[in-house]
Structure formats: C-alpha cells, structure tokens
C-alpha cells in the first residue's frame, strides 16, 4: 500500500466518522494517523523518540508545536501534490508557516459539517458576508477560504462567484459600512438569514466607524467572530465586545458566536450559543465555552512537562484533530484552556516568559503563529 493510498483510506475513514459512522473510535483513528505520521515524517519520528511516546494513548500523542510549521514543511507528501496551501502571518524574518493539504474534501466536509451545526439557526438560505478583505486566488488564508465556503454552502443555491466586493466588506478604503447596510437590506428583502463573518479586530473597527450609531440587522441575524487583535486595533475584552456588537446590530448576545481555529488545524471549535442551531440544541453552551466537533479533542496539558492535567485544571491546549491526516494529528498550542461542562474554556494565550532585563523575548521575535 502506498503512502497516498493509506492517506486516502484514513481521510475516508475520518469523513465517515464525521458523518456519524462509529465503527472506528476517535482514539483508534487518532492513533492510527499518529503511527502513519511517525512512519512518514522524520520530524514527528524524532519528536516521538525524544518524548519517548509509544503512541498507545490519545492523550499522549506528542503535539507538534505550531512554530514548527514556520520552520519546516509539516506534510507527509511532496509540494507537487499540494492542493491547498494556507499560510500563517509573518515573523521578524518574514517567514510564514505553511499548512499544505493534499486532500481538500476532508477539510471542506469537516468545516461545513460543524459550521452548519454551529451557525445555522434555521433551514432558510443564509446570506453570508465577511468583514474581511477580498479572498485572494488561490486562497492563502484558511479563514478566508472557510468564509468563502460558507458563503456558497449556506446560500443553498449551488455554486456561484463569491469574490465580489458585496461579499467582502473590507477594502483599501477600510470597512464598507454601507455595504453591510445593503447586505442587511438585501437579506431582509429576500427573507434570508444574514450571517456576518468577522475577525474581532474588524468588529472593533466597525464599532469605531459607527461611532455610537446603530446598524440594525434583520431579526435572526448571526455574527461569527474569530481571532484576536494582534495589535491591529484597540483591544476590547470579549464580553464587552459581544455586548457592544449586539447593541450596535440590535440582536441578542447569543446570536454572536465565537469560532476558534488555527491555520495549522483542519477543524474548528465554536461556542454553542446560536438559538435554533443544532449545536445549541445538543450542547446548550455558554458564552466563552467552545464545543469541539466529535473528530477533534482538546487535551489541556501542563505547560512545562506537557502531560495532561487533571480535569477542570488549567493547561495549555494540545489539539488532536483527525482532519490533519497529512500534516500533524496533534498540535501543541500556547493557548490556555480549561475543560468545563460543554467544552473548553479559552483563557487567552499563555504569556511568553516575560523579558527580564534586556534579553529579547521569544514573543517579540515571533510575531506570527495564529491564523
């Protein structure tokens, strides 16, 4: 069996698992993918050897640090077989991390499956716009690519061109507030549900642009926010941002849902708050609690010895994502998390070692990482 055949089989098994087939367990699949990656990735083999990992327990699959994507190619296949290439933001050296995908179907199916469950509050077509710059071609941002997928899939009218200024509401002149107002009117007129996809800093930019003015969205509209601020704008505490956005749009706070994703992952986590959504019906989540899809597990680990911490204790997130068949099934992040009822509570990024004296801190050197 060739590596690609094995990979294809694993992809198919993961997609079946995502569709509800439980003939193979999460643990079986995760460990089989990890063993496959150890065989084909010298880097992962070294990491396993260094950590003396036997790959017999999901909780002990060594996580590949997200920094590794910036320094080396984290892929089992050669670049000639890449079908999607997503890049992280840059660093001091200009180096960007790359997550290369050989099989796109798994990414698409997994993202859509959980996106639909988390974001769609009803069966009607959704009109989706993004407070984001126009998606590049080919797409290099995993977030932008996911937004484009949602625009097409949630509209429920087959394929259409999404690369239009009416859909992507940030351009050289800044935030297109009038464009958002037009989208709101159009959704209402067509009796579609409006879904606004945005980064946190774009929402802060929108609030600044509105300067206290309201921009009412149609009833039932949903706002998906993601990501941090990365120094691009003033920072607002998440709860305050949610309240301010809800007030500006004239919607209820549960209609604002946070997503957690990284370029290095295939899958995403969401808050289970959107009224009427499948995820909210199933998990009844609270704001700040991120629900994992069944094919992804967050393992909070001790920041020093990287061993799993007892339940409900704070650790840093090691994320086991079955979608990462051809890259790294376990990713070690620096995000502080705690397992709670209904999912994972995100507590912010672990502060790098604060610089003592004038020694350059890693945080100052590495400006990139997250999507």
């Amino acid at each position, binding site marked *: 069996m060739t590596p690609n055949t094995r990979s294809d089989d694993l992809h198919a098994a993961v997609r079946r698992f995502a569709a509800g087939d439980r003939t193979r367990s999460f643990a079986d699949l995760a460990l089989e993918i990890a063993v496959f990656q150890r065989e084909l990735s010298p880097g992962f083999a070294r990491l396993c050897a260094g950590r003396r990992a036997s790959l017999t327990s999901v909780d002990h699959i060594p996580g590949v640090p997200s920094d*590794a994507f910036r320094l*080396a190619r984290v892929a089992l296949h050669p670049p000639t077989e890449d079908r999607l290439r997503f890049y992280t933001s840059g660093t001091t050296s200009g180096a960007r991390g790359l997550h290369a995908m050989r099989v796109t179907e798994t990414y698409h199916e997994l993202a859509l499956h959980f996106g639909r469950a988390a974001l769609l509050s009803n069966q009607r077509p959704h009109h989706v716009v993004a407070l984001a710059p126009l998606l590049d071609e080919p797409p290099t941002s995993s977030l932008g690519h996911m937004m484009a997928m949602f625009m097409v899939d949630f509209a429920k009218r087959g394929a259409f061109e999404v690369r239009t200024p009416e859909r992507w509401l940030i351009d050289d002149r800044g935030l297109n507030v009038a464009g958002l107002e037009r989208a709101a009117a159009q959704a209402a007129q067509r009796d579609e549900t409006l879904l606004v996809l945005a980064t946190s800093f774009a929402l802060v930019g929108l609030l600044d642009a509105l300067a206290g003015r309201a921009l009412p969205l149609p009833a039932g509209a949903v706002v998906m926010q993601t990501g941090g601020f990365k120094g691009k704008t003033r920072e607002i505490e998440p709860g305050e941002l949610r309240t301010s956005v809800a007030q500006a749009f004239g919607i209820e706070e549960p209609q604002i849902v946070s997503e957690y994703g990284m370029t290095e992952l295939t899958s995403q986590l969401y808050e289970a708050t959107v009224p009427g959504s499948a995820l909210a019906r199933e998990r009844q989540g609270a704001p700040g609690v991120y629900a994992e899809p069944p094919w992804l597990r967050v393992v909070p680990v001790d920041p020093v010895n990287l061993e799993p911490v007892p339940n409900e204790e704070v650790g840093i997130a090691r994320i086991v994502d079955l979608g990462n068949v051809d890259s790294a099934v376990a990713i070690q992040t620096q995000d502080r998390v705690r397992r709670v009822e209904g999912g994972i509570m995100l507590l912010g990024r672990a502060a790098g070692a604060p610089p003592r*004296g004038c*020694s350059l801190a*890693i945080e100052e050197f590495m400006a990139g990482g997250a999507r």
Partner: protein
Amino acid sequence: MSDFEFEARRARLEPLLESARSLGDGATERGRLARERLIASSGLSAQGVDFALQRCLEIAPDEREIAALIRSTPQAQVAHVLLSANVFVAAHRAIAIALAASGQVRVRASRREPEMAELLLAGAPGSFQLVKELSPHSGDRVWAYGSDQTMDEIAVTLPAGVALHAHGSGFGVAVLDGPHSDRELSELLTALAEDITLFDQRGCLSPRVILVNAPPAFAAELARELARELAELEQRIPRGQLTVPELSEISKYRDTAQFTGEVFEAGLGFVTLGQTSGWLLPPSGRNVHVLVTPDVIETLTPYRPLLTSCAFAGAPARREQLRRALPGARVCAFGEMQRPPFDGPVDRREL
C-alpha cells in the same frame, strides 16, 4: 571637551569604580554581602552570581576605555538612569555613563533587582541618588535599559526637551567561520559555553544562535561538543531558578527543535541544530541554536536591529566585513561577549 571638564568627569567616576572594586572580591565583607543579596534577587545560583561578578563586573577598566566612555557621553543638566533587572553588573556601567554626563545623577533601580545599585551607592555615598520614580525636566537626559515595551512606554511619557537614550531588547550571536584546529575549536567552545552560562542568558549580550559556515556533519559535531561543554560547566555553575513561563518556553523550543532538527541535552539546557534555514530563537536558560549557513552576513541582515553582540572566530578580513555589516553590534572574540570594553553603553545600536 576641555582637559578641565574631562578631569572633572573622570573624578566623578572614581568613587563608583572603587565601590565596584570592593564588591568584586568575595573574601571582603562587601563582596560577601553583595553575593548574599544578589543570589536572593537575581534568581541565579550562588555560583552563577559569583561567576558573573568575577567575570563581568568592570573592576579595573583600562584608562583608554574610561576616556572613550567620557568623551562619547553627552553632557546633561541632570542624568537619569532607569535600570533593568537581572544583569546586575550592568548597573555599574549605566551609572558610570550618567556620572560622565552630569554631577547630578538619579537612578531608579529595577523593582525586581534593586540590590546592585544600592550596593554601589553604599560604597560611593553621595555620588548619585537612588529614587523611586524618575522626574526629568527639559535639558535632562535619561538613559533607560530594559525591554522594548518599557522603552516605548518611557518614550511617550517624557516631557519635551528631555533626551532619551533607550537601550531595549536584543540578543547576541556567535559566528564560527573558516578552519580551526581541534585544539582551537575546543578552546572556542569552552569560551562560548561561558558566554552562554553567564546570567543564564538573561542579558541582551548573551549568545542565542551560533552560525557556522561548515558542512552539516561538522555543525552536528560542534553542537554535540558544545552541549558537553555546557553540561560540564553546569556542574560547576548550576543554572538558577526559572519561572514556569520560562520553563514552558523551553519545552516548546525543545519540541520545535526536535521536529525541525536535532536536539542535544546540555545539562538542563539544550543545544539544537537546525536542518532548515529558518531561525529558531531559543529562550534564555542556557539554550542555543546552531544554524549552518554559507553566507553569514546575509543570514544576519534581517536581524540587524536586534543584534547587540557578535562573537567571531575566523579570518581578520571576514571579521572586518562582519563589523561593517553589523555597526550596532559589538563584534568580539568568543568568551568576551559578556565583558565588552568599558567605553560606553554595551548596546551600540543607537550609535
């Protein structure tokens, strides 16, 4: 500068130099007290504090260096100094520069490491003032040392007419170029291990990356040998206390290096070898990354604003090229990174 003014400035330095001299010797009461207090405040081991005082405290600077320090320091009505933590010997040079600038010197020590400034003042009473907050006025100068974030914060709060000499974050590199005999190489690595060990790499002069213009197999051998040197030195000079965030950074660095290259245990720290051209900046705590490159200057160019120190071993002509390419970094020999000439700020990036 007139001879009279030069002599006046020189005279202001003498009590401070004498105070530092009396701290260097661990057999004296002041030397013993300094060690006791610095162990508690710095987080370094007892041996680490003693090693730093013995190797890095400028107790007998050359008169030519002192003259250079005086002549390169601009005059100020009042000289203010904001000290950083941990590289405690830096307080001596920082205060000396301020004394060269003015007869009125006000020093705000780091809250985490106030000891060295107090110890220096105790041995040179009245030569400068220790203050809780700096309050400069127009015509004054401020010499500030610390993280870039601290420098940014200070820059926006100073009144108009106050000159700021900001010395922010940085790091050092070592460059091994050209052929060396086994004996030379062994001596170089012994010296470099000392550069890495001093202050547990918490200073901006500490080497964090070693660039080698040599075949990969040679670089691997070098990394292994350096790890052995560091482990040996750790037996004599144990690493100090690290915080959880520092230890966490080390775990992340080790695993990243493991995935992207090779890792050699070096006592409690690590020497890592890159298999790609990407930079991996190790966290402090006696960790160093070895990078193979055919063109050292090109590799260093993107990091020029961050480089404060560069140890070089190789042909004099190549050293000169490096010096020209890195005007803000002090280019020196292996083993000399942590004790640059006493001729002005260790950080020359603003020059």
